[in-house]
């Protein structure tokens, strides 16, 4: 009874945060647009409903595109979940996605293997490299007490410029007009999940499998347990005899491996060459997703879907109306704010608590009377 009420409260709270954020967005759209209703229509229903000649129909390709956009962000979302659950505010996922994509692309170009295995090996290499890079902020934290937030944030730029350096000077395909690598071998490509040349690759299935794996890892293994307990109370974990330092490193290495994997799968599934010239932004989105999902791996796909939908809506709005695509930042920031704010609707929460407690007390009193008779 109590848990049901509290769970209901969390749902209401989440919905309210989204509603308030969209409300804020609506205000800005009305302020900045000459055609606010059109803009809103594209933002809210555009991603899935296409309207042609007054007839609304389900946009299947649009749906596939949203799912495709979820692939890298599910991985980065999971990575951030693991690290945040360990109370490690590590933000290096962003740079590692880029390195992962680059490394996977190189493996796709220069390794020669059979179909099937090639892509798997490429992605695994990306994961290993991602995990190794994460050792830097993790060991700095554990050995020297350096804030992982600062070091990981800086590390993103180190990653990016290293990739750009090697891309420019060592691996660029000079025959092309823009800076990009050679095309990877067909064997390394990750195939499309649906017919029709959609970007929705098998990577989506892999991402969902990893949602389950990470959920099991976090809630059904001794390592995940230690990661979570250290995140809740480090002093308690140390006193209980857990290997705190090692576990902090492990959480970040797992986070790095997931990020690297996400980058590799994204590059091999979406493109034919590596052509990122700046940080792709999936790492940041991963942070948003982890916060929306409250660090629960099983909620990551939902959060990723929501963000992908919103992104698509904003893109459409920017394309077909006069509202700039930067609007998405305002909406995301507003959602962020209300989700992260512990005290949002705290008064309402307190009312539920009081009600629950009164009900419990009444029950106790009733039992006592019943016992006396």
């Amino acid at each position, binding site marked *: 009874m109590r848990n049901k009420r509290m769970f209901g409260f969390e749902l209401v709270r989440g919905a309210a945060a989204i509603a308030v954020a969209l409300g804020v967005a609506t205000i800005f759209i009305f302020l900045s647009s000459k055609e606010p209703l059109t803009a809103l229509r594209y933002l809210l229903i555009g991603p899935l409903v296409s309207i042609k000649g007054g007839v609304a129909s389900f946009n299947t390709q649009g749906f596939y595109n949203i799912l495709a956009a979820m692939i890298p962000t599910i991985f980065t979302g999971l990575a951030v979940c693991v690290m945040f659950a360990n109370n490690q505010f590590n933000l290096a996922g962003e740079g590692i996605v880029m390195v992962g994509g680059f490394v996977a692309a190189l493996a796709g170009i220069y390794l020669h293997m059979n179909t099937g295995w090639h892509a798997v090996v490429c992605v695994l290499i990306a994961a290993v490299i991602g995990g190794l890079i994460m050792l830097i902020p993790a060991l700095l934290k554990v050995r020297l007490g350096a804030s992982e937030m600062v070091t990981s944030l800086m590390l993103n730029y180190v990653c990016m410029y290293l990739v750009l350096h090697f891309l420019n000077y060592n691996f660029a395909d000079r025959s092309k007009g823009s800076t990009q690598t050679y095309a990877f071998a067909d064997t390394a490509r990750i195939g499309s999940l649906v017919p029709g040349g959609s970007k929705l690759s098998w990577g989506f299935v892999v991402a969902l499998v990893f949602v389950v794996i990470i959920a099991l890892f976090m809630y*059904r293994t001794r390592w995940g347990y230690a990661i979570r307990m250290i995140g*809740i*109370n480090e002093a*308690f974990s140390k006193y*209980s005899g857990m*290997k705190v330092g090692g576990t902090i490193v492990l959480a970040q290495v797992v986070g790095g491996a997931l990020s690297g994997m996400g980058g590799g799968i994204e590059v091999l599934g979406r493109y034919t060459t590596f052509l990122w010239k700046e940080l792709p932004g999936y790492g940041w989105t991963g942070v948003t997703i982890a916060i929306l999902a409250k660090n629960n791996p099983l909620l990551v796909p939902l959060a990723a879907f929501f963000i992908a939908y919103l992104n698509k809506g904003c893109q459409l709005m920017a394309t077909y109306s006069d509202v700039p695509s930067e609007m998405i930042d305002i909406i995301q920031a507003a959602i962020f704010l209300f989700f992260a704010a512990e005290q949002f609707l705290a008064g309402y929460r307190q009312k539920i*608590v009081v009600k629950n407690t009164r009900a419990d*007390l009444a029950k106790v009193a009733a039992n006592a009377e019943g016992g006396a008779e």
Partner: protein
Amino acid sequence: MEQNDPLKHDIVVQMKGITKVYPNGIAANQGVDFSVRRGEIHALMGENGAGKSTLMKILFGLEQPTGGEILVNGEKVSFASPTAAITHGIGMVHQHFMLVPSLTVAENIVLGMVPRKSGMFIDFKKATELTNEYAERFNLAVNPIAKVVDIPVGMKQKVEILKALIRGAKILILDEPTAVLTTQETAELFRELVHLKEQGYTIIFISHKLNEIKQITDRLTIMRGGKSMGVYETASISEQEISRLMVGRDVILDVQKGAPTPTDVVLRVRGLEYTNEWNKKMLDGVSFDVRKGEILGVAGVEGNGQRELVDMLFDLKEPHAGTASVNGTDVINASQARIRAMGVSLVPEDRMTYGIAEAATIEENIISDRFEEKRFNHGPLFNMKAIRAESDRLIKDYTVLCKSRKQKVKMLSGGNIQKVVVAREFSSDPTLIIADQPTRGIDVGATEFIRKKLVDLSRAGAAVLLVSADLNEVMELSDSLIVLYGGKIAAYFEDTSQLDDLVMGEYMLGLKRQSDEEIGRVCHEK
């Protein structure tokens, strides 16, 4: 003025139907009525967890009531913060002192209302004068230029009282003021309180010690389970009656325990020394042994090295000199994991920091020291069945009152939280149990249960080191005990059954110290 209604005029504080539900769902106050007359010493009594502190926190503006109203001097008030309460003449002295250790007494007293020179510099001279003036007026002797870190607990309390008085408090709330004091310091405090009362001040005295209440209070309000059990004239109610109202049943105060049969030394501590960050020597050559099958108590006024001693034994701090070993294996340089592997358990003093992870479930808290054991794992995965069975068994054995093992620990009451800690620490078949304030702040039922378990474990062959600021507890439970004063062992009593608390008080206060030979007997060297 309502001069024709002397009774109403007489009431300085009136709280009507106060209800408080905390965010974790605990209803600490359920419709409590409470009123205090001007110029009386009014006791607010009740067991730990009865809701006394909550009620007073509401009066002092630290907590907001869920329901009910408060009248001060007949005027309806609502305090959003202690600042608001202070402007209405209410002051509070907390159980744990709110002082800055590195500042002087005078600086602490004027903190937040600092006298200034030329509008900019702190006027230390004036602060000292102000302190002296108030100290004299209220007969509360303090040394204004001493640093708070250096002064004894009794004086810290006077500083707290002065702080409240200087801010214009006419109504003083004292939260268990004697909990940390020796018998002698308590007597001194009572003289000062009576002096304040004679000058027209009103004092609300939170306590659960019957003899003190009888000694100095005029009236008393008894609370139980978040409700008021009524107001009584102190002179017209017997201690038995108060006890019955407080607890609702007859409490067996003395624990039944057979004679100890101590054998081999388990914990051996030699020459432990520790100097804290304010360069104060907290431990100064402490040596003792704890044997299998005995409970060695560590008594002493808080802050005389008890915490440092425990921290050192469990690798929470490194000593500057000395050794400690369990069954011959060094524990000073061992990690907690290794110390636990040696069979050492710790019931930590600060249970909310070390003892539990609040936001985790009961189950997750119970397995924190054993989740890596083979029996709880199937290859890489947890054996959820074994984990469930273990937590359900311990919840049952230790009578943890909860909805299920999946309940978050922060939703439990203090006593049940401690039972979770104890369930884990006592169930790992320990050879040495370090119990640091094992029953502080928890209800009678849980206290009795935990004390009984400790005795049972020691009689079953565990060595127990019991650190407690509760004199009754340490004297009743221990087979033998040491008194810590100023980081040194001041006394060793081989047999606690004949001990008298006045004698204990003298050692705890540093008035007396046994000879080195007498103290040396606690080291059972062959």
